[in-house]
């Protein structure tokens, strides 16, 4: 009985390894397809525009709401904390701006996009897979990755950057309101960009781009692996949401670390 369990773990690990390798391949194919395709002049503008409308329209309100509430919470908690020790209330706005640009803005927006957009991509591609349309694409001489994933890749990156900026604005603004109404922080003191160095904005943008790139790759990958019928598509959707969210967290960690190392103590 024990042996069976070990062989199951072994097989599971092997499967995971194979899946990871396949994911890396899809990622490389997407990036390669995007870069070379763009260079060779293949810009599926209509498809990208369609994706942009689809994604952006339905996600904007969602992102604004969630980031807004998070902004309120974070400022509230920080104010509570600082009033306990020493009155650092005047710092809160500036600190929050820094944290938003560097980390929370891009990552939280991306987590929201992972649920909204990632699920949609996996569902679309997944149902194509279970109805053999992916096979039909290949028989017609088209690589599914370049036809399906690359346009979404471009659209998601653009969306991620745009929505991140909206989200940060919402979080900062909502935070400022909370600071004013609950802790009487003068808005002019709160809305202070002094702590945000240009290098922070660059790191934040790199994150937004990386997250926007990761979500369609992971979700598309999960969609392409869908098996069976509508249950399989559902499983692919769930995997896409979890996988994209996890990818965002790992990338956040990695980019933050690299940023800290490269920018030194000033980060």
């Amino acid at each position: 009985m024990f042996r069976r369990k070990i062989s199951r773990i072994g097989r599971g690990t092997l499967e995971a390894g194979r899946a990871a390798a396949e994911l890396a391949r899809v990622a490389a194919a997407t990036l390669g397809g995007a870069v070379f395709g763009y260079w060779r002049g293949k810009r599926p503008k209509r498809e990208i525009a369609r994706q942009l409308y689809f994604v952006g329209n339905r996600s904007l309100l969602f992102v604004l709401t969630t980031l807004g509430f998070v902004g309120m919470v974070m400022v509230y908690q920080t104010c509570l904390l600082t009033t306990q020790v020493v009155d650092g209330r005047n710092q809160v706005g500036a600190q929050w701006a820094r944290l938003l640009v560097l980390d929370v803005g891009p990552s939280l927006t991306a987590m929201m996009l992972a649920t909204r957009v990632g699920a949609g991509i996996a569902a679309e591609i997944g149902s194509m897979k279970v109805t053999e349309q992916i096979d039909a694409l290949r028989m017609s001489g088209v690589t599914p990755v370049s036809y399906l994933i690359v346009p979404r890749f471009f659209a998601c990156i653009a969306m991620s950057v745009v929505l991140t900026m909206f989200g940060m604005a919402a979080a900062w603004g909502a935070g400022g309101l909370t600071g004013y109404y609950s802790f009487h922080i003068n808005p002019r003191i709160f809305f202070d960009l002094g702590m945000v160095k240009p290098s922070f904005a660059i790191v934040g943008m790199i994150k937004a781009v990386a997250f926007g790139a990761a979500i369609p790759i992971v979700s598309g990958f999960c969609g392409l692996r869908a098996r069976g019928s509508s249950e399989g598509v559902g499983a692919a959707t769930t995997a896409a949401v979890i996988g994209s969210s996890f990818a965002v967290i790992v990338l956040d960690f990695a980019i933050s670390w690299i940023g800290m190392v490269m920018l030194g103590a000033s980060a």
Partner: protein
Amino acid sequence: MTAISVDGVTKRFGSRRVLDGVSFAVEPGARLGVIGPAAGGKSVLLKIVAGLVAPDAGKVRVRGAIGMLFQNSALFDFLNVFDNVAFPLVHGMPPRGGAGPRPQAEPSEPREARMRGPGVAPRAAAGIDTGNIDQRVRERLRAVGLAGAEHKLPSELSGGMRKRVGLARATVAEPDVVLYDEPTAGLDPVTTSKIYELLRGQPSTAIVVSSDVEAVAQFADTIAYLDEGRIQWLGPAHALFHADDPRVRRFATGEAA
């Protein structure tokens, strides 16, 4: 020169051996019918020949371009009928068969498609210009009796109509080999005979996987009976119903065991 040659193909799913040392050859222009009990490996075999799935062992060699008609037609539900049929012409030739070990299993792409390179601008395949595409698509739709349905979406079509659109799409690039996976499954007898009429009009080499034994026996030159992963019987179609092997005869005629 054989058009299709399959040699010792084996495929396992987990511990189950779905195909075990399958070998056969098809001459150019000839028609092979593959019959057998459900889940006997017929669809998998067809996909291996098409290059969509890689065998665990064995070799497949196909001369020329391949077209495929899928069990559920697999029409692109985001494109209308015209765009569906035009798709292979707009986006490049169907993958050509090649000798030697097949490329890895999905979701990797067949080596042939990869050689074309990612991100190739959508242009008509070599030797076909855009005006020509329009003509060829309309000709195909006329041939399958669906002229006038160009702007419909797949969701607006009946099962039989979808199969016909699928057939038009599979043959519009004039492939040398066409593979049919259950072309008449779920269709009424009248539609079934109409579909086989269309198949007969195709000059290409063909492999048909079907559960409709009678119809396939009329259409094909040779029949292969696939059961438990092996070809249990391979012979001319007219000899099927008098086969020596009692299992085969029973399956073909539907006699009780």
